[in-house]
């Protein structure tokens, strides 16, 4: 599975999570699973410039959203 496919899968899972998460353990598990899956997916392959740019853009957008929460 490519890094882009894993990211798409994670995004889909996360989109459906708010009603499913009930404990902090699940958030940490989500994070740890994300690391593991991405490490497995990337392997020895270098991420492309486009993948990095998309990722950074998403992070910046999410950060703005987090900062806007009262």
């Amino acid at each position, binding site marked *: 599975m490519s*890094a882009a496919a894993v*990211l798409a899968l*994670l995004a889909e899972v*996360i989109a459906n*999570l*708010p009603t499913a*998460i*009930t*404990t*902090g*353990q699940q*958030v*940490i598990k*989500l*994070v*740890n699973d*994300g*690391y593991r899956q*991405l*490490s497995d997916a*990337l392997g020895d392959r*270098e*991420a492309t*410039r486009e993948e*990095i*740019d998309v*990722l*950074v853009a*998403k*992070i*910046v957008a*999410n*950060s703005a*959203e*987090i*900062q806007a*929460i009262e």
Partner: protein
Amino acid sequence: MRRILNLGLIVSIVACLTACALLAPFGAEDGARRVAKVTLSAYETTQQAILIYGRLPDCAERTPKICKDKVVWAKLKVVEATATRAISEATPVLNGSRADAGQLVAALAAIENVKTAVQEARVKLEGRAP
């Protein structure tokens, strides 16, 4: 729960040691970039988790209310904003268009700070001593 916290601590320490081991030697920039790319990708998941938690309207008994404690939530927002700035500054290095002058280490460290803050928030909100 103690076992999970211990495991989380061990994972964080291993991640720090791995990052340090890869970033320390001269000529290891490619390896450092790869580690940073994986960490950066995974950080997006961390952010989503923070975002979801910050918005949870449910106050169920076992739900850690990260955003309900103003001090905890303010700290999380500060470290998260710092990490996002560091990631933006490291992006040209990650893309290979600029030599690394410490941006990768700074971004990795900032991301680790967010993870630590999330762990501390969990401990505090669950009523344990840090």
